[in-house]
């Protein structure tokens, strides 16, 4: 190598003597462009937050005429829902109880199955099989809810009537089973993510101390992932409470509270089905329409509270992993 090549390689790049940060005076176009881009991205982010906020405001504003006229204790505690009679009565207790009943029953079916499936996918089965099965489980979440509704009314209801001798097949049990199937992919996915994220060290330490596989899973892995599992269950419950089409078709929509509280073979009605079924009929500006918006406010508060709870548990899960 001669000295000529060396000098060529060491020639400084163009503009290398410029200072790193230019003042607006030196580079006006760059300054304006960077701030404009920043404002544009901020605006786009704001509009999505604003959309959620505006939905909340819209529903509350439409519900206020009803909430100020009608006594709130009657609304929340009365069982009579007769919106179209000559003297309308709006008692949402049957709707609230119906929604909670069906969601909790769905969780009773879905949580054990979901957590066991999550444990199976993360701890017991090989990596290759897990990578095939997990996407298939997530496809279950993509089936349209009205397809589930049709299945519930046309297949599950007659089968239940024949098999269990129920007088009616469109009842709380039918709706709970279908809601459990719909909540399952959410629960499995989130719980499996939480359990896998614990890492190998925890499990290897447990095996190193002589624990069997069952003891490791039950006493070490599940307690360590409990925040993520709780978050998964809460998300599943959110899915179940917010589901409309399935309960509208499969639950029978009778405005009643089941007489012995454990009798799942009776028809019930949920808040979501009431809003979906009656909104089209309620004339604009009537107390019926405001009452439906008030039911919507109830629904929004419930899902909001569940959302906050799940966020809390998810952040606890992330924090505990961060400490590891």
């Amino acid at each position, binding site marked *: 190598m001669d000295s000529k090549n060396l000098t060529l390689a060491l020639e400084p790049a163009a503009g290398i003597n410029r200072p790193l940060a230019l003042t607006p005076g030196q580079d006006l176009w760059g300054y304006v462009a960077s701030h404009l881009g920043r404002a544009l991205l901020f605006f786009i982010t704001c509009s999505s937050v604003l959309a959620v906020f505006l939905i909340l405001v819209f529903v509350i504003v439409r519900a206020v005429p009803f909430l100020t006229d009608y006594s709130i204790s009657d609304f929340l505690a009365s*069982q009579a829902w007769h919106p179209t009679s000559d003297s309308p009565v709006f008692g949402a207790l049957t709707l609230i109880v119906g929604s909670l009943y069906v969601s909790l029953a769905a969780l009773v079916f879905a949580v054990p199955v979901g957590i066991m499936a999550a444990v199976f996918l993360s701890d017991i089965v090989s990596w290759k099989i897990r990578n095939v099965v997990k996407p298939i489980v997530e496809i279950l979440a993509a089936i349209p809810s009205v397809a589930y509704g049709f299945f519930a009314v046309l297949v599950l209801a007659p089968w239940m009537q024949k098999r269990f001798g129920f*007088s009616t097949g469109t009842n709380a049990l039918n709706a709970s089973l279908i809601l459990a199937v719909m909540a399952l992919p959410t629960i499995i996915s989130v719980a499996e993510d939480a359990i896998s994220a614990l890492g190998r060290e925890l499990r290897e330490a447990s095996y190193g101390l002589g624990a069997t596989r069952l003891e490791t899973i039950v006493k070490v892995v599940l307690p360590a992932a409990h925040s993520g599992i709780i978050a998964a269950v809460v998300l599943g419950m959110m899915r179940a409470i917010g589901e409309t089409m399935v309960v509208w*078709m499969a639950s029978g*929509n009778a*405005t*009643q509270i089941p007489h012995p509280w454990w009798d799942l073979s009776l028809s019930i009605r949920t808040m979501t089905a009431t809003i979906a079924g009656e909104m*089209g*009929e309620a*004339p*604009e500006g009537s107390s019926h329409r405001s009452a439906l918006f008030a039911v919507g406010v109830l629904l929004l508060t419930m899902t909001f509270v569940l959302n906050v709870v799940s966020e809390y548990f998810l952040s606890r899960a992330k924090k505990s992993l961060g400490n590891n």
Partner: protein
Amino acid sequence: MKKAIVGMVVLGLAMGMAVQAETLQIEGSTTVGPIADAFAEYFKKVYPDLDITVKKTGSGDGAAALVDSRCDIATMSRFMKDKEFKSAVDGGVYPVAHVVAMDGVCSVVHPSNPVKGLTKAQIRDIYMGKITNWSQVGGPSMPIVVISRDTSSGTYETFHGLVMEKKEMGPGVEYVNSNPQAHARVRTTQGAIGYVGIGFLDRNVKAVKVDGIMPSRQTIASGVYPVARPLFMFTNGYPELGSMVHKFCTFYLTEKGQELVEARGFVPLTVY
């Protein structure tokens, strides 16, 4: 690249403006829906440029759409309520009713149910929850599964007015949202009783006599059957003579229209 995008946008707009075919929006009842569908199919054959959409979500929805001027024709299986009429007139829409056919609301039970007839009072008590077992009305000992249409339905309004006499239904009544769904529920549930328009009667469900009268074309057309009703198409004002809306609303007077109405199981208004 930019030129291609601009070119495609302009081409899309031009195509959109060129296909400026006439459209006809029809919304409303699930009972009158099949009639509107049959008319729409025939119209599409005769006028291929015509773009007809028929939505079937309930008479209440149809009235609301006409009031908001979202549709040209609102099909309804009941007359407009005072409140709907008032909001229509307040909004500058003047509803005009055209009666296109007669319908009967039939009480149906499962084909295996031996009960042949019920009085109006018995049906009312069943829906109010006072009679809960088929043995109380002459059937086998089975709990009655009561099925009704939801409140946005014209079929419900007719039943509520003529059979229930405006009394409230009991708490154990199940609600479904369309005639086909009510039919499916009664077809698959042994202890069920429901009500459907006569166009939905077939061999899978059994109609019971109401006050001793079997629902049929003759009894409905002559008004003998107690739960008979006219089916309406509402327009904003009387439609302009010769326009598509006018042709559609007066189609039931033609022979072909009568044939279509009868084929769907309803009772045509004129005798030809």
